[in-house]
């Protein structure tokens, strides 16, 4: 039985640039509260995400299910795109962090465009997003960026078995870029870029819970 939430995917808050990389397993739990407190830890109760959830278990792939999953991915890409765009504009970032944000926002925008194109008129709208300090202060930005990129990798991996082959092929081209982002920001932050030999996938429900706890999403 998995935890409600994969703690190691959101273990970012206590890390600041220059700090030595923590060991993978020992101190994760204490990070949890800090990271997720950023957004006020409001449970996103509107039912918006639940309605958009792909099936939680592996079920027979179909074009209709692909669309559901891609819309789920699109929400994450909207968040990433807006997050890195806002941070690179007003995040008081410099040096490596600014370079990272500038490069990554371009990638996330391209992912949004790709998914919207694939979904056509089924594409969900971008929600209203408020990131608070995470796009205004470099330390908060770094912690949030690590959490967000780790989350995206696990979210895509968790859906691999639910996709038709064609959509899987496309998703695979995105997920490794998210993994590169995750490795990159972790290296900048002085955290272990690849703390496990195999990546733990997350179900849509787990991803949705993690997103909800950030409090960043204000409307559907």
């Amino acid at each position, binding site marked *: 039985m998995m935890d409600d939430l994969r703690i190691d995917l959101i273990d970012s808050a206590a890390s600041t640039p220059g700090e030595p990389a923590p060991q993978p397993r020992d101190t994760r739990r204490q990070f949890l509260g800090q990271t997720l407190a950023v957004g006020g830890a409001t449970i996103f109760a509107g039912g918006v995400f639940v309605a958009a959830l792909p099936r939680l278990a592996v079920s027979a792939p179909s074009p209709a299910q692909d669309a559901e999953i891609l819309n789920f991915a699109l929400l994450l890409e909207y968040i990433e795109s807006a997050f890195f765009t806002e941070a690179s504009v007003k995040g008081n970032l410099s040096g490596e962090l600014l370079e990272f944000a500038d490069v990554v926002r371009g990638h996330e925008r391209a*992912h949004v465009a790709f998914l919207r194109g694939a979904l056509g008129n089924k594409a969900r709208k971008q929600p209203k997003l408020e990131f608070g300090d995470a796009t205004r202060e470099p330390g908060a930005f770094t912690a949030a960026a690590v959490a967000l990129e780790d989350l995206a990798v696990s979210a*895509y991996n968790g859906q691999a078995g639910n996709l038709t082959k064609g959509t899987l092929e496309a998703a695979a081209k995105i997920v490794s870029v998210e993994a*590169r982002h995750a*490795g990159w920001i972790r290296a900048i932050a002085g955290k272990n*870029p*690849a703390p496990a*030999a195999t*990546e733990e996938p997350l179900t849509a429900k787990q991803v949705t819970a993690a997103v909800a706890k950030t409090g960043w999403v204000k409307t559907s």
Partner: protein
Amino acid sequence: MGEDELTIDNTPSELTLAQVDSDGALQEALAAVDSRAAFLGKAALGGAAFLAALSVPEPAEGAVSASDAAILNFALTLEYLQAAFYTETERNKAVKAELARVPRQLGAVERAHVTALQDVLGRRAVKRPAFNFQGVTEDQVKFLKTAVAFEDLGAAAYKGQATRVDSPALLAAAVAIHSVEARHAAWMRYLAGFTPAGRAFDEGKPEFAVRRIVASTRFIVARPRTTRRRRPRFTG
């Protein structure tokens, strides 16, 4: 520059690794190190999680289709190559100070991948080839550039197989390794001074392309004879 050479994207041609100097080549017996560290990697770095992801408590050979076994053996060959590369670099102490943890960590991880794939394949697992890394495990700069090329190649190779895997459990395992290879690629690129994420979409590589690149490195060499005693050339 030929497509079938192990190269680093967006970098000048002198980083091509296919024609690296073969001086100082090592022929190391890695088996002893592997068995010790495979245990370590499995316990500490997620090899057990990999097996759990397979949902095959006692992987039986019959549980893996012939097509999937071929894919897994292809992956195993790459993991042998990576594991031997990092293990040999660590043993050579070629990488100093802060960077010393790089071959140590990646060696343990790639050995864990080897062990996990071997466990699934059972007797169908291909044998470990012999390697001659032609000096790249003895020099920090060459090591890093080779690591970049290996990890980019590993990510592209797993991606190239993702849509070909039959078993959902094996697909789950393959994607769980795929993104770790991509993390490694970004990390090695960061350390080597290359952009960790050069484009918005990563392309996969088909097996034949990956094998051609691996062959071009000449890192995999003819397997040493099991008996040291050479037979006379002419036996009359």
